[in-house]
């Protein structure tokens, strides 16, 4: 039995070996994409184009502008006329000749209000098209406003004392606000399963399309032996990708591995097995390998939306957040980030492991059922 399973797995590796382009894509596509995504998103955020209009013109307001200018996050232009009502003129560059991401409006009487210990309103306009830069800039701007305002309002209180009272804004798991730290683990988790289900779907659909599946059934194979034989290359290639990408994200992008690496490796393997059934399901509803591959892409797109890969799950509507729990990738990305960046273990992650187990039973059970039905109605 084992010999027959390995025989099929070996044959499938030969198919891949003979299809060099596919092999290169399967083996290196993930790491390449990860590197590109990491580099594209990993650049530090500085020199965010900022325009400030100072309606106050006091010494206090000028001093604050100087703080902004001194901070490398901002590239400040001081406007000599009031900001327009239609901010698009600023953000599209129609007004001041540059497309700004941040516009800050300092009101008249800012200095006096502050000195009197009241809270003057400073308006910060953000161009959300550059969401990432805008978010970073906002955080930084708030920080500057807070400290500077406090210094002016309570000159006797030292900065150290202030910090003791106010929680400092720190970004815990992503210290340098380096987006590559967020995107690259997602990418690794994502490729792990896309490659696995892609190979599984492609290999099974191919046999069905060519009619060789029937030949395998006529040989002394139990149908399950065929399925397991086909699962091996999918798991091996998906997992190899994951290991490669884990290396890249750790050694090239400096993502820490704070938790237990062995735990992560075991859970990653477990996760591939959970998703494997998806690949087989897609192959079983397809008539050709092309159909199967297109379906894999479709499923991958849907998963991108729900996984928290493209957009944080927290920013989704509540209904979508609930739905997202039905996607194994969502749980695995939590596990992955948990182990890598938060350094937590099963004591925290167990609900997600349990969820994966349940989803795995469901997915693979459905795949087996469909497989058996396809055998009975094979025509």
């Amino acid at each position: 039995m084992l010999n027959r399973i390995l025989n099929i797995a070996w044959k499938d590796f030969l198919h891949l070996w003979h299809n060099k382009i596919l092999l290169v894509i399967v083996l290196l596509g993930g790491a390449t994409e990860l590197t590109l995504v990491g580099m594209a998103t990993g650049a530090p955020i500085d020199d965010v184009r900022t325009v400030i209009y100072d309606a106050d013109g006091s010494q206090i307001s000028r001093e604050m502008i100087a703080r902004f200018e001194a901070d490398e996050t901002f590239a400040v232009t001081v406007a000599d006329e009031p900001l327009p009502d239609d901010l698009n003129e600023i953000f599209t560059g129609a007004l001041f000749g540059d497309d700004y991401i941040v516009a800050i409006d300092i009101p008249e009487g800012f200095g006096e209000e502050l000195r009197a210990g009241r809270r003057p309103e400073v308006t910060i306009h953000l161009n959300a098209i550059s969401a990432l830069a805008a978010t970073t800039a906002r955080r930084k701007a708030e920080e500057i406003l807070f400290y500077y305002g406090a210094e002016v309002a309570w000159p006797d209180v030292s900065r150290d004392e202030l910090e003791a009272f106010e929680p400092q804004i720190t970004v815990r798991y992503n210290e340098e606000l380096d987006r590559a730290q967020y995107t690259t683990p997602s990418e690794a988790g994502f490729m792990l399963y896309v490659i696995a289900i892609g190979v599984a779907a492609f290999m099974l659909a191919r046999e069905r399309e060519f009619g060789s599946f029937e030949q395998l059934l006529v040989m002394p194979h139990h149908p399950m032996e065929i399925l397991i034989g086909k699962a091996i290359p999918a798991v091996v290639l998906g997992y190899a990708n994951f290991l490669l990408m884990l290396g890249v994200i750790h050694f090239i992008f400096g993502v820490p591995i704070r938790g237990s690496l062995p735990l992560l490796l075991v859970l990653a393997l477990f996760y591939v097995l959970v998703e494997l059934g998806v690949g087989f399901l897609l192959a079983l509803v397809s008539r050709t390998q092309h159909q199967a591959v297109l379906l894999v892409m479709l499923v991958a797109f849907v998963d991108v939306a729900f996984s928290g890969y493209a957009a944080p799950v927290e920013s989704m509507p509540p209904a979508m957040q609930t739905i997202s729990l039905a996607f194994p990738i969502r749980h695995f990305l939590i596990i992955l980030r948990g182990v890598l960046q938060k350094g937590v273990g099963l004591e925290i992650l167990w609900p997600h492991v349990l969820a994966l187990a349940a989803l795995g039973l469901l997915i693979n059970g459905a795949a087996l059922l469909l497989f058996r039905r396809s055998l009975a109605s094979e025509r």
Partner: protein
Amino acid sequence: MADETVLEALELTKRFGKFTAVDGVSFSLRRGEIFGFLGPNGAGKTTTIRMLLGLLKPTAGRALVFGVDMSKAAHKVRARLGYMSQKFSLYRDLTVEQNLRFYARAYGLSGKRLQERVRYAVEIAGLRGREGERTATLAGGWRQRLALAAGILHEPELLFLDEPTAGVDPVSRRAFWNLIYEIASRGTTVFVTTHYMDEAEHCERLAFIYHGRIVALGSPSEIKREHLPGEVVQVTPDDPETAVKLLREAYEAGTLAARGVNLHGAQARVLTDEPERTLVAVEELLGGAGIGYSDLDVVPPSLEDAFIKLVRDRL
């Protein structure tokens, strides 16, 4: 044990919705014979073979192979069967050797025996020195022979060949059939489907299937005797189309003693019980119409004549 039964089809029936693909088919195979399953495309040949292999559950009836009901326990006899399907034979992206090794291992061969059998298969496929070539690069005839060789690596007792020579040139078909004879001579029973009449003549026994039913069963000569008494007057006219039209009109008008008129390639064939009289009549008809001809003769009927008649009877 010359007439030991290795396979039995008992009233095999398969319906797909309202369409009856195979309708109450019964026959049996004796050990060591070459059994031809003949019929036009769509007659139900492949559906029957799939039921015999246990790939398809019959709607009614049973398929017994070595006494095992194939819809229930096919796995018990799989190792004793070989199958070369019409749709797929080999993995085209794999080499000759890789294909053979895959087949051999799937049937549990290993070590020295695997080496021996693979070498033997390469030999009978005539592919020595080309083991490393991908099968996609082989011409159709070579590939079919290789597929056959792969199918007998494990020395099956019963070999199913589904349209093994479809789309293969005549010379390669001959070579292929020589291989089938060799395999059968070693004691393997061969079940082969085909729609080529000339190949049917190579079989020891035949079943002719038409619209899902067996319409003739027996050896080629039995079938001819039973379904086609009489002889054939054959002629090669200069203008075959016109000649056949003329002869057919005469036959339908009752002025030509015959049981049917067919066009076969460039030849007109007239089935008759009175060959001498018909011969003279054909001579007169063609001469009268001014159609030149050659090779006018009385020949024994072919299987094709028999099947054309069988099909005509059913229209």
